[in-house]
């Protein structure tokens, strides 16, 4: 490692936002010809560190050396000129719509202040081809509109453009988040090639398997501080440990069907809209039941029927021994059925509102008398659940946007666990949630599910195996299998999910 040339040193980097110390004393070195990954839980300070490297924050503390010389970044332009190139997560931000492939490749030339006033198509094309050759993209039709090529080709164009400036450091921020596995494979091959040519690559990703596969070294940021530096051979468990610390194994929950005697929810021959299969399900108190299936298997339809969004075609829903019927969400909530919807940004988060307001939203009647809210009671209840679920925030009054994705999800889960309920349905609760928050939520559910039950819907086997007591497989609108989690064989489950 040491025989390679040291290109960039970031020493004792710190940054504060208002009263929050987002980053304190983080140092990393970047060598030529290596892929260096930075990992950290959501909110650990990863993106702050990267933004400092890219010149977005002029008021950072600490020192950045390039080729041994101290530099000070006042603006993204400074970082760009110092040879730091970044390819952002969002591909759409990196390309210019309504322009051709060639124009996108030669963008720097087109928008440069020195560009000639008359648009010289030949020159643009020549430059575009030069840039394309760096990434073996010559096969692309240069006249095509940028919208007509694939996501990964767009990304390759962005990377090619970044490389054309001969950067010292190429930063890739979550590059695989919007491309397929196959495309990711191609990306990695390109990265290896660049690495072997001596480019220094800083790679950021949520997917630890990727990190393990491609990185030469891994740097960890944990709670805004340096969390460790891992060399090959890399182990995922070690990376996780460095990211979130020693997780107490929260999974020694003993589950015995006999303990949970009370039948909470029973579906008798329930036929949901868009299907003709009668469903029969029994869920007992104290149970955390997983429901797994492919997209389109009918999971969402079932959840929406239970939550009063859709009406069942026939059959019965029996709650706590009584047959119930409801036609809207309000009535479902009254019967103690709560649901954490999937995709929190679209379906759950109330932006520009405090954590407290986000938590208490469905139960405002409970906190008010003649319509006037009792902020005291609201605060008391919110504070309690913020503590219990370990929501990392500046207080109940902080805006929801100030939280990391994982903590936002905790708030949304807290919203529905706040009040007594019979069953809470969680629809893809761990989408875009970091591992620490995921474990916090799981632990809370496991410790607090006694008189009620949990129905967790997911398409990720590992998520469900971590948390649930029982797993049901849904395939083509039918429950085809159900088993205690402790006895589940992962491979068998996979084949059940995908079987035709």
């Amino acid at each position, binding site marked *: 490692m040491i025989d390679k040339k040291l290109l960039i040193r970031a020493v004792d980097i710190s940054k504060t936002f208002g009263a929050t110390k987002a980053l304190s004393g983080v140092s990393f070195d970047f060598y030529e010809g290596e892929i260096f990954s930075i990992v950290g839980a959501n909110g650990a300070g990863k993106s702050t560190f990267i933004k400092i490297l890219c010149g977005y924050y002029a008021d950072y503390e600490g020192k950045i050396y390039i080729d041994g010389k101290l530099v000070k970044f006042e603006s993204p332009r400074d970082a760009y000129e110092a040879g730091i190139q970044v390819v952002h997560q969002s591909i759409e931000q990196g390309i210019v719509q309504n322009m051709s492939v060639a124009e996108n490749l030669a963008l720097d030339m087109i928008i440069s202040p020195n560009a000639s006033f008359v648009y010289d198509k030949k020159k643009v094309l020549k430059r575009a081809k030069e840039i394309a050759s760096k990434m073996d993209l010559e096969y692309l039709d240069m006249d095509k509109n940028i919208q007509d090529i694939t996501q990964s080709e767009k990304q390759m164009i962005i990377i090619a453009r970044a490389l054309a400036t001969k950067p010292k450091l190429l930063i890739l921020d979550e590059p695989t988040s919007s491309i397929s596995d196959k495309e990711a494979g191609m990306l990695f091959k390109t990265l290896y090639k660049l690495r072997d040519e001596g480019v220094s690559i800083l790679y950021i990703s949520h997917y630890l398997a990727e990190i393990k596969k491609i990185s030469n070294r891994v740097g960890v940021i944990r709670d805004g501080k340096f969390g460790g530096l891992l060399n090959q051979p890399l182990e995922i468990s070690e990376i996780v440990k460095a990211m979130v610390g020693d997780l107490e194994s929260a999974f020694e929950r003993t589950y015995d069907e006999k303990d949970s005697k009370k039948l909470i929810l029973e579906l008798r021959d329930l036929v949901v809209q868009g299907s003709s299969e009668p469903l029969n399900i029994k869920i007992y108190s104290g149970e955390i039941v997983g429901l797994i299936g492919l997209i389109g298997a009918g999971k969402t339809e079932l959840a929406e029927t239970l939550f009063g969004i859709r009406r069942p075609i026939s059959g019965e829903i029996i709650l706590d021994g009584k047959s119930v019927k409801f036609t809207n969400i309000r009535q479902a909530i009254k019967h103690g059925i709560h649901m954490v919807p999937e995709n929190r940004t*679209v379906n759950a988060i109330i932006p520009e509102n405090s954590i407290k307001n986000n938590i208490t939203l469905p139960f405002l009647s409970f906190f008010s008398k003649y319509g006037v809210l009792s902020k005291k009671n609201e605060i008391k209840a919110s504070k309690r659940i913020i503590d219990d679920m370990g929501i990392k925030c500046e207080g109940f009054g902080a805006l929801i946007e100030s939280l990391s994705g994982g903590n936002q999800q905790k708030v949304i889960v807290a919203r529905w666990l706040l009040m007594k309920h019979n069953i809470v349905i969680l629809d893809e609760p761990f989408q875009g949630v970091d591992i620490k928050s995921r474990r916090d939520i799981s632990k809370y559910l496991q410790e607090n599910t006694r008189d009620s039950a949990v129905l967790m819907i997911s398409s990720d086997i590992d998520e469900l195996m971590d948390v649930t007591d029982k797993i049901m497989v849904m395939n083509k609108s039918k429950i085809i299998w159900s088993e205690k989690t402790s006895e589940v064989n992962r491979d068998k489950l996979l084949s059940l999910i995908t079987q035709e």
Partner: protein
Amino acid sequence: MEKFVAFAIKYGFLIVMAGSFLGFGLLEPSFWSWSNMFSILLGITIVGILALGVTFTLIVDGFDLSIGSTAAICVMISSYVMVVLNIDYIYAILLSILLGITIGLVNGLLIVKAKIPDLLATLGMMFLIQGLQLIPSAGMSIGTGMMLADGTEAEGEFAKQFLFLGQGRLFDLIPVPVVVFAVLAIIIYFVLQYTKWGRILYAIGGNEKAVKLAGVNVERYKIMAYVLSGTISSIAGILLAARIGRGDVTSGGGLLLDAVAAALIGYAVLGVKKPNALGSVVGVIFIGMLLNGLTMLSLPYYTQDFIKGIVLVAALIFTFGLSKSEI
């Protein structure tokens, strides 16, 4: 720097306001007299009440273009009831409010049930009302002694009690419309800040779908916002009728834009960046004060709209421009 910007966003507007209050008074001592204070407030009440109304629809991420014409038609209806029909002024008030509620309800239904975009629905309503208000009096202003279609003269007149609503003063100092405005403002502020209804209205403006999934009947709340907007506009109309004392066909002009401008300026007050009752009130008072003070300092009348525009643009910069957005 960051702190300074945050401070500027939060208090900048109020500081500018306090500064101009001081400045005007120092340059022109009669500016500070009680009677001038109330004359400023009297000048802004109608627009202020309308701004409160439009605040409700702005909160649910909607818009109501029909507020000005709703107020105008209530002027005509009140006059028609008292002057042409010659019946008790109570009916003028009741009928106006009923009309306001109806207009709001129709707006709400058009937007929520018929799914017409808010701007278009209320624009259509605005034209409809502007036309409708001319029909009972055949396009003429309504005043005592006007010639009716059958050749007789209208005999009714504006009731003293009704005129008191617009022209009366309490303790020979505080104009009655100002009192009505203040009471409305306090009620609306309270409802928006301290009740679950206010909370839910704001939440709907933030993320309608999430509120729906929290078990709230979002449609009903949105319709309610338009009904409130219509009702509040009709109250403004009643006061306007009582101030003018005549069913003047031109009375609605300019009210809409002034009210919307005030509500938008309100976004900047205390840096809340949301439509809010306090902001709308402060916004409208600020404009009123500025125009009053500048007129005292011999600013020509024709520069007034220009001044309003400057204030609005500055407020919008405070609200949206100073908060740096990250790429």
